[in-house]
């Protein structure tokens, strides 16, 4: 029976062949693989075997663990672009799991596929020192140095992709685009591409499953990265799950809560960083119109990666929970409060995360009593995502986290352990097909 007959005219082939005979060829790209061609170079920092990792996992994560994965830490150098589309050579840490022969044999005995690598792109929270960048934290000493990678790679068997971000690592000479949507997403996106290329070129058996996480600033970056992938890079990644945690997703609301006449900056360094970043990114914004004249000189090289949070606040002469008008001019605060067209307000809103119709599973995680990034950020972005028709948004609010403020702890930082534990477990459940 002839059904769905398709007429294929080879006379067209005849004609097109004449074109071929004449030397024309319209097939795109017959050269090297262009997927991940932003990869520049790689440097192996450490390569720790699975038995060593099992000891570490047992002592630090799970005393009952019977398996762990080898931990191969690689510094990836790659090309990306900053907020103004200028070329930047950036870096990040890639930690690749290696399965032991015993584990591979176990999987096969269970009728499972041989182990292949799924990836988590985890985006770190706000750092001020370049030494805190993932590629600087990981050092060649035969031991794993990046704690999250011990959990994600050594214990859970994911490849961990940890962008340094622009402004740290190899791009330390650049300013960090703090809470700027485009550059934040692109630096992480390009790190993923370069990491995949490294794994391809080095015969790492990866399966292209991609998970995205991040905490605090990293939570914001995670959501902007996911948005960028879903909007503009469909068909390039197998995005499986997104776990943004404790991020300031709705920047205009975040600004509203602080930049007001009776506003308080719980950690002034963060707010100063935001002001400095936006002043550098947008030509219509200047520090001098926002910040007190007396504070302006302190901003010189303040965020160059050589000053700690404490250093920054000391140089600014600000303490925790300082009133907002100790940093910002009253005139600016008044304008911000009263004028919807206030330039910072407009740009903050422009950089809000989560305003798209997400199709990948999202799990928003936040601690109810977060003392730096209010949990309303998560409640708000959940509403935004769902209003846009996001397919599968889940929210986990964690209660009961405490902090010893006298020892410099915060609820925000202490919440990260519980949040990450949940996120990794959630990723694992997706990977294994449980959800």
């Amino acid at each position, binding site marked *: 029976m002839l059904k769905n007959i398709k007429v294929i005219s080879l006379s067209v082939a005849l004609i097109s062949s004449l074109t071929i005979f004449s030397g024309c060829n319209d097939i795109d790209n017959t050269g090297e693989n262009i997927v991940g061609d932003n990869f520049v170079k790689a440097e192996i920092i450490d390569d720790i075997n699975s038995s060593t990792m099992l000891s570490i996992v047992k002592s630090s994560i799970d005393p009952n663990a019977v398996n762990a994965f080898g931990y191969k830490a690689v510094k990836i150098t790659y090309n990306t672009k900053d907020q103004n589309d200028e070329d930047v050579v950036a870096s990040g840490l890639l930690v690749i799991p290696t399965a032991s022969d015993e584990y591979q044999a176990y999987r096969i005995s269970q009728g499972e*596929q041989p182990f292949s690598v799924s990836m988590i792109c985890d985006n770190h929270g706000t750092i001020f020192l370049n030494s805190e960048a993932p590629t600087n934290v990981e050092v060649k000493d035969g031991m794993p140095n990046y704690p999250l990678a011990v959990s994600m790679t050594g214990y859970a068997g994911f490849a961990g992709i940890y962008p340094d971000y622009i402004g740290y690592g190899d791009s330390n000479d650049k300013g960090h685009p703090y809470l700027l949507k485009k550059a934040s997403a692109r630096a992480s996106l390009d790190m993923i591409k370069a990491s995949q290329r490294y794994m391809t070129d080095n015969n790492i058996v990866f399966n*292209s499953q991609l998970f995205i996480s991040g905490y605090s600033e990293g939570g914001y970056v995670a959501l902007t990265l996911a948005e960028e992938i879903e909007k503009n890079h469909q068909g390039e990644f197998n995005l499986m799950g997104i776990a943004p945690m404790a991020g300031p997703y709705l920047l205009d609301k975040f600004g509203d809560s602080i930049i007001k006449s009776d506003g308080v900056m719980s950690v002034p360094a963060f707010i100063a960083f935001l002001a400095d970043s936006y002043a550098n990114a947008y030509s219509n914004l200047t520090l001098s119109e926002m910040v007190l004249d007396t504070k302006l000189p302190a901003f010189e090289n303040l965020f160059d990666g050589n000053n700690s949070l404490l250093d920054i606040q000391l140089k600014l002469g600000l303490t925790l929970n300082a009133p907002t008008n100790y940093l910002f001019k009253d005139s600016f605060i008044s304008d911000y409060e009263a004028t919807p067209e206030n330039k910072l307000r407009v740009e903050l809103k422009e950089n809000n995360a989560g305003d798209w119709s997400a199709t990948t599973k999202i799990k928003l995680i936040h601690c109810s009593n977060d003392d730096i990034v209010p949990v309303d950020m998560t409640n708000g972005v959940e509403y935004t995502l769902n209003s846009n028709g996001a397919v599968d948004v889940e929210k986990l609010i964690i209660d009961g986290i405490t902090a010893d403020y006298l020892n410099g702890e915060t609820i925000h930082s202490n919440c990260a352990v519980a949040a990450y534990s949940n996120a990794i477990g959630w990723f694992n459940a997706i990977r294994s097909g449980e959800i």
Partner: protein
Amino acid sequence: MMKNRLVKLTTLSLIATTAIYANGYKIPETSTSSVSLLAANVAHSSGADTAYYNPANMSFMKDENLINANLILISVDSARFKGSAYGIDGLDIESESELPLIPSIHYVSNKYDKFTFGFSMVVPSGVTKEWRESPAKDVAQKFTLEVVELNPTLSYKVNDNLAVAFGARILSSHGIVESSSTASRDMEGDSLDFGYNLALSYKPTSALEFGLTYRNKVDLEEEGNAKLYIGDAKVYDGGGSVKVPLPAQLNIALAYTFKSKTTLELVYEKSYWSAYKTLDFNYTSNIPAILQPSMDDPITKGWEDTTTYRFGVTQELDKLTLMAGFIIDETPIPEQSVSFELPGTDSKSISFGAKYQIDKKLSAGFGMLCSMKDSRSVTNDHLNGEFDSSETYIFSTGVSYKY
């Protein structure tokens, strides 16, 4: 379990799908006369398509220019499979039907002393196949190979009984390979390749004719772009190539013309498909390790040489010429290599056609054939079932002009 199956699927060949005949992916008929005679017109040939089927015979043709143009419509029935494949039982799936339209042009010149020049532009090979149901589409969602051959030839008349010929083969091809599964491939390439053909014609009497023709093996090296995907993720976008052989072919032909102007023709045809040992996709740079077994490692094909017997009968009746043919064809594909891309089976074909001399210069004709492919039971590493019998029909019409 599903993942297991899908990954295994990607380890398969993705080339050369259901052929028009049993005999691989060749298209032997490139003119109306050859459709009518099932390409048995080797020893006894008198039309412009002599330039292609036995150019040595050009030396025995009249001293005139002769040109012939044809349109050939091929109706390929869907391939239907019942059984189990890749771990899925109870399958009853069929491919899309195909209806390609193929043109051809043949030309034979007047004489230049003992030399005669000929030229053919034909489609000697070509397939296109689409499966839209799993698991077949996981292996061969789409395969298209289009080949166009330019074949200039030159014959030399040794004496009144013997002539020889040489031809150059210029083959332009375009290939598309698509598979859609957990791991997917989207590949497109072009190739320009060269070969040669030889021919000999011996006529001991005016009634008895011998013909011997040979075409060498040409490897179509399809080079272009390949995109590889794992799920939705594109992991490779760069240069890719795959080599597909057009096998060498030897024809030994005999024809005898009775006083009644009835010509019987017999062709023994050997196709050296054993050249198709492996199918090997190559890439300009590394592909992900997880895809290497399925997308990069050579795939054993192990095809076998085939023998085809062609019978033709021609009856000249004043201005009308009637033709008919019959062939017995065998598949080159061993059971172990049979899959959805090319469920080759043995076949038998019959044909008939006619030419009419409209005036001294112009003639026109038509021909048709029916190829009946046997059903084939297959038990190999991937398939356990049967491909149903099916038919292919070819309809051809052509005009010839001499001056």
